[in-house]
């Protein structure tokens, strides 16, 4: 109010303000509209907080933080609800859920965390976001090398990193190991998604475990020299590139083949038909596998149900479902893989404790940066 000389400033301001309020509606259309929007906005905020409060409740509901897409886990949740009557709420995001869980601390509504890639699981464990679980069902169902020694996370399904080769252009037996990919004879014929994707990073970690950092770097240098194009696309796109004749050899996850081969879209079935899947390193350490897995949130108010949910996922019905829904392998050795997956044949898998892959991941990323994969 400085700058205006009035006898009784307070009174005067009040009068002006009242006058303003009275006339706002008539004189100015745009601000009114803005005002209405503002009102709507604050209403939305308020109802949002109410919503938040209603989401946080214990009892016959389970809250899930998932790195897996909703349409992939939906069948499992439906089966769980059908069996137990417990409803499952999901938040799905591909990145940053660990930070969210951490920031929420003990107020977090989350009960269970589900993710793909061992690296992510290990990060949750490292940040102390997962509670140790003692469950005879889980330790029996999940082999020791596929779970945390402290019981904080458990593998729930497996996928293999396989080599896809062109059916027509690559003679049988020409490629048998990951190491072959660095052979100059494949110069300009290899396709891959970028090295820093979790699947390739995990494979790189397994190469480091097998050959040491220097050996793995030499391998990656050879592989990069053989690339037909700048690394790009997802695993699906690599199969497509084989179909297009752009490359003869590619690295993919096994379930991509299953999905393409049984796709509703004719064109995608044609991509799958143009390739053959090779499970590498059958004569030595076995094929590199990665897992999807889960754990119980440290501050879950519902730990019993959370453990029951994980147990449910390792039992026969759910383990089979991993195969039928997403062409993954069961972790529970007592359960047979789904027929579509079984048709690919048995193979030897790398029995390296899966936690090593997570431990080596940062080193693997450095090698990937150095070699420009």
């Amino acid at each position, binding site marked *: *109010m400085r700058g*205006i000389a009035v006898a009784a400033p307070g009174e005067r301001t009040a009068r002006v*303000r009242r006058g*303003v309020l009275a006339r*706002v509606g008539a004189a*100015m259309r*745009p*601000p009114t509209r*803005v005002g209405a*929007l*503002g009102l*709507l*906005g604050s*209403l*939305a*905020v308020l109802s*949002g*907080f109410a*919503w*938040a*409060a209603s*989401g946080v409740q214990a009892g016959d509901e389970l*809250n899930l933080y998932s790195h897996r*897409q909703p349409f992939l886990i939906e069948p499992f949740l439906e089966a769980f609800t059908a069996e137990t009557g417990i409803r499952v*709420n*999901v*938040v799905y995001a*591909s*990145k*940053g*859920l660990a*930070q*969210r869980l*951490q*920031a*929420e*601390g003990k*107020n*977090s509504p989350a009960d269970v965390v589900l993710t793909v890639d061992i*690296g992510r699981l290990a990060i949750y464990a490292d940040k102390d976001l997962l509670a140790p679980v003692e469950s005879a069902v889980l330790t029996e169902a999940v082999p020791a090398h596929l779970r945390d020694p402290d019981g904080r996370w458990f593998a729930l399904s497996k996928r293999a990193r396989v080599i896809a080769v062109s059916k027509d252009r690559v003679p049988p037996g020409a490629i048998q190991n990951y190491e072959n990919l660095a052979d100059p004879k494949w110069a300009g014929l290899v396709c891959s*998604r*970028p090295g*820093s994707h979790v699947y390739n990073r995990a494979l790189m970690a397994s190469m480091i475990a097998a050959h040491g950092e220097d050996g793995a770097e030499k391998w990656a240098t050879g592989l990069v020299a053989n690339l037909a194009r*700048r690394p790009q*696309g*997802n695993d*699906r796109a690599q199969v*497509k*590139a084989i179909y*297009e*004749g752009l490359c003869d050899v590619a690295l993919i996850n096994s379930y991509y083949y299953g999905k393409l081969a049984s796709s509703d*879209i004719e*064109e995608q079935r044609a991509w799958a038909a143009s390739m053959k899947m090779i499970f590498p390193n059958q004569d030595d350490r076995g094929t590199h596998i990665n897992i999807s897995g889960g754990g119980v949130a440290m501050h879950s108010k519902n730990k019993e149900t959370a453990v029951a949910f994980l147990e449910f996922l390792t039992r026969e019905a759910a383990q089979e479902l991993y195969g039928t829904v997403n062409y993954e392998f069961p972790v529970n050795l007592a359960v047979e893989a789904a027929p579509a997956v079984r048709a690919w044949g048995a193979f030897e898998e790398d029995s390296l404790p899966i936690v090593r892959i997570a431990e080596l*991941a*940062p080193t693997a*990323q*450095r090698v990937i*940066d*150095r070699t*420009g994969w």
Partner: protein
Amino acid sequence: MAAPILSVIAAATGDSEGLWAHLFSTVLPRYVANTLALMAGVGGLSLVLGVSTAWVVTRYEFPGRRVLEWMLVLPFAVPAYLIAYVYTDFLDYAGPVQGALRDAFGWQTRRDYWFPEIRSMWGAIVVMGAVLYPYVYMMARTAFKLTPHTLFEIARVHDRGLFRTVGLPLARPAIAAGLALVLMETVSDFGTVDYFALETLTLGIFNVWLGMNSLPAAAQIASLGFLFVIAMLVLELMSRRRRRYVDTGRRMRSLARLRAGPAQVAACLAVCLLPVTVGFLIPVGLLLSFVVKGYALPDYGDVLTVALNSVVVALAVAALVMAAAALMVVTVAYRPSRPLTALAGIASSGYAFPGTILAIGVVTFAGAVDRGLDGLISGMMGLSFEGFLTGGIGLVLFACMVRFQAIGYGALASGVNRLPRNIVSAGRVLGLSLPANLVRVILPLLGTSFLAGGLLVFVDVMKELPMTLLLRPFGFDTLATHLYQYAKDELLEQAAVPALLIVFAGTGPVILMNEALRRLGEGRAGSR
């Protein structure tokens, strides 16, 4: 509102354990070079497309102008990552374009001919430029329209080019504001560069964060990108430091349009149709063709609920952003103080951070507040307290507000700076306090800027993905998150319906508000 941004910067002060030495010697130079190239390319393309189309529709009268005037805004409703997916599908080897070429020329394999690779730097520049130029277009068009015709007449008397001597120089602050938004979005984009596998700073942020498990180093790289943008803005401000842009014309009438001759009509149409076609007609057509082919989703009911969520969130954020922007702009313009100005600057620069990184800033901040409140409440009343801020839809709104504040602020600031300063002094002489001045004098004069800013924010929130994805409460989906679960796996066919809904939900308001803008502009010119 600066708090989440400051919390990212605080994270950047953490120990990155010597990662920088490794990054410097390996990937960082490439990240920086690619980011600069992308900024230059997208910025340049947006300038050319945005300014030329804005000039053409304000300067010339030609058949279809009124339709094109709003159609030019439409590409803005298409998310950049979506158009990237669609064009890749359209232009790559198995796509219809190359297929037709092969049939026509009898080529057999990929090695028989050369075709530009869409997943490349130029592809990213075209794709992002095609959907981001409307920022420049909207800002420039408003500025051209508001430039008094008397100034153009002076130029005409002196036989100078109207565009070069009057139009462009006077629209410069507005164009710069539009360009700033384009650049911020370019720096922070993740979806497109990830899909095209371009190694920019954003991709580097995620490799470092998720691959090397170092959030501090990731936050440091993010701050680097942020610095790029700030540096550009400061340069622009410095270069026009000594000039002020104020409308003094009393009778505001826009430049009368020239009736275009046949050759000019063709040129005008070509200039305007090119961006509309590339940025809107082709991608939407392709998406529609997926739906027609029947690859769409069966659960339309779900999609509609989800669409409603999107619209409500977008409306709320638009209103909140514009209200906050009004407060900030007016405070900075009429009660200037250094710390306040700086704070407003920081608060409106969230747009330069990748959404996910900003979301982490938001959730960290909210978590700290929650813990503080929790301690307070349980200390005082012995009650346990469930999270208040985290995990609610309020957090999504807050995050979007922080991120898109730049847009609201930019739109209003360029409007406020055109107002003569003495308008406020006049109000004061008449006995109005500053708040009263704000409501009665300034806001009515800023009506157009308000609508333009609100519209931009609305459409941007409709498209927003990474923050909603991470911060939303249980069971809450927007069109963008719904679309993402399919798009992530390149299941474009299943993604088509939600994608089209995003585009159309953005299109309606764009048309409506554009109409409102037009009427407002004309009404104003006529009533005085």
